């Protein structure tokens, strides 16, 4: 491009003018094709939009401001990552068992960030209005940045600890990771408006604090400075995503009254789909943090019951939206959820990329205090029994494969409402085939769109079809890409042994000095020389 030096410099636009130029001003009405042909995906879901210009983006970001701001945050994050790696920061974690939470994070959550990047990029092409297109574009770039920074943040641990080396393959193959994967696949394969409610509203607004705050405060309590810094670095993006989610639902509801029942069904569906995914967070909070932060029950009460049911839904009632079906079951389950899920991982630890153990007595005291209505009565006796079996040399692993729910894909471990001692079983027949579900709500989701869920890639069914590397558990684990130390009992595991060895080196300064001298001697450097 050439410039004309004689022409006076154009007057600089204000921030607001630049935003307007970037969004509204590069929009046009198509003349060679119809609007329908240009945006073919925005009518079949039944959502009616009359005026796309009513989409109000409260952030009004411009591209240059966006990248400048993100680059600043990246600089700070990578400085922390470098410092932590160089200072052997991994040895200052509370305990290597803490990293089980991060193994779940990188295998279960990080790949979803990447999928979100791809799908928001799709939305940034396919919405008719320039406002939502640009908002989706920004979120798309955020999501790829999150995926990358999470991978970089955790890659330092991967040098020393098991279970993370193969996270992308594990996300595609490992039985329990099919839960978050199929959740997101369900959203990706929906229409653009449903995706906006599924991910933009339900995931990023309704459940986001339940999903992310536990990981980040867990990191902070357990000495994981890099993950905590990542969390701060993502926080301002997340608040923008929350605003986008809320703007999305209000926009749809305000555009046409006929949208209300459609959106209500999506809210019902996506609350429940998301809530089932958070079961793993419940377990992480209550059982996997060596220094616990808050219980799942407390977290659910604060972030969901108070903030969402108490704060958001009274506002949405104005539009004719009620709290999601399934809320009552979720509230009742809060006393049971984490215990049932950790017990499942304990029983299937030989097949997961995390390690588990019976909680210590101290930890059980904490659980009893956090769950006065259920722990001592129901769950402590279970752990006592499993501990006794372990002490007798019979550490219990489930001898077989579990029954899975066709919708959430979680082993069917959840109890009947009000009956903590009875597993809930639901079923439907479709085209002469029998399908099983963990709850009324997963059954409702299936019955609404059975054509979709009959295609689910159910890990147990696939193993039995011979599609997962072979007929035995070692065959399947090899196909998952597991290596020594990725799974099983925590005590005596490779990470546990290494941790002790490394700490013995650090704690025993004399031995540390001897080792340093030997290492320097090997390089042909004397200690006095090195001190210069």
């Amino acid at each position, binding site marked *: 491009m050439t410039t004309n030096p004689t022409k006076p410099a154009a007057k600089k636009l204000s921030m607001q003018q630049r935003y307007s130029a970037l969004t509204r001003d590069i929009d046009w009405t198509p003349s060679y094709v119809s609007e329908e042909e240009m945006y*073919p*995906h925005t009518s*079949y*879901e*039944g959502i009616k939009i009359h005026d796309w210009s009513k989409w109000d983006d409260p952030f009004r970001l411009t591209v240059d401001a966006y990248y400048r701001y993100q680059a600043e945050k990246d600089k700070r994050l990578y400085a922390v990552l470098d410092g932590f790696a160089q200072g052997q920061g991994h040895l200052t974690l509370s305990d290597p068992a803490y990293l089980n939470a991060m193994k779940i994070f990188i295998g279960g959550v990080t790949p979803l960030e990447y999928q979100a990047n791809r799908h928001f990029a799709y939305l940034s092409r396919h919405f008719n209005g320039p406002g939502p297109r640009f908002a989706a574009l920004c979120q798309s770039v955020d999501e790829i940045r999150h995926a990358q920074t999470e991978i970089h943040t955790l890659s330092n641990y991967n040098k020393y600890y098991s279970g993370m080396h193969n996270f992308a393959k594990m996300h595609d193959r490992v039985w329990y990771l099919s839960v978050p994967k199929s959740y997101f696949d369900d959203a990706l394969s929906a*229409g653009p408006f449903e995706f906006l409610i599924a991910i933009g509203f339900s995931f990023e607004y309704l459940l986001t604090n339940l999903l992310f705050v536990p990981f980040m405060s867990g990191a902070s309590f357990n000495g994981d400075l890099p993950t905590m810094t990542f969390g701060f670095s993502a926080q301002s993006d997340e608040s923008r995503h929350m605003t986008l989610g809320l703007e999305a639902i209000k926009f749809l509801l305000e555009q046409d009254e006929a949208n209300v029942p459609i959106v209500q069904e999506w809210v019902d569906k996506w609350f429940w789909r998301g809530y089932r995914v958070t079961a793993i967070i419940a377990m992480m909070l209550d059982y996997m943090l060596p220094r616990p932060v808050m219980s799942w029950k407390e977290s659910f009460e604060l972030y969901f019951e108070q903030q969402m049911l108490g704060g958001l839904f009274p506002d949405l009632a104005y539009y004719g939206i009620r709290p999601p079906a399934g809320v009552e079951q979720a509230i009742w389950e809060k006393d049971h959820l984490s215990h*049932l899920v950790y*017990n*499942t991982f304990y*029983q*299937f630890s030989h097949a997961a990329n995390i390690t588990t153990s019976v909680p210590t007595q101290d930890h059980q005291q904490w659980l009893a205090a956090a769950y006065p209505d259920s722990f001592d009565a129901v769950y402590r006796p*279970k752990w006592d*029994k499993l501990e006794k*079996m372990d002490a007798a040399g*019979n550490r*219990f692993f*489930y*001898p*077989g*494969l*579990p*029954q*899975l729910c066709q919708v959430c894909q979680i*082993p*069917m*471990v959840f*109890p009947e409402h009000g009956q903590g*001692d*009875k*597993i809930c*079983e639901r*079923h439907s027949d479709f*085209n002469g*085939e*029998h*399908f*099983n579900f963990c709850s009324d709500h997963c059954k409702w989701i299936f019955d609404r*769109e059975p*054509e*979709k869920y*009959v*295609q*689910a*890639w*159910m890990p*147990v*069914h*696939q193993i*039995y*079809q011979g599609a997962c590397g072979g007929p035995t558990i070692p065959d399947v684990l090899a196909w998952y890409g597991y290596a020594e130390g990725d799974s099983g009992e925590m005590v005596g595991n490779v990470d546990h042994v290494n941790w002790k060895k490394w700490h013995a080196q650090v704690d025993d300064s004399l031995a540390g000095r001897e080792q340093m001298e030997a290492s320097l001697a090997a390089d042909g450097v004397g200690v006095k020389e090195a001190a210069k």
Partner: protein
Amino acid sequence: MIKALGTYDFPSRSRQELYGDDILVHVLRGSSMFFCSAAAFRAPKAMKWSDFVGGMVMPFVTSDPDFDASKPLTWKLVDDDFDPDPDKSLEENGIRHKNTVTLIGA
């Protein structure tokens, strides 16, 4: 009905024909939550009920040290009471692909 841009008709990824002459059968223990969930087994449709119980169900349930094998076993098939004929096959006893049989008592 699903809302889609085009024809939406895909086969089930867990349909019985993918298992040849076998079916998947779920076994739930109704009176204890020691096992975190019901178990899934792949078994021939033609397998006798007594062989299914002896060869598959018993090795599974007896891994619970508190399971009392001396007590009589009673069953449910999906939602209904179930009185299987030990000499008849799973199929002849009315068990279909991915059904759940619940073991009550013991």
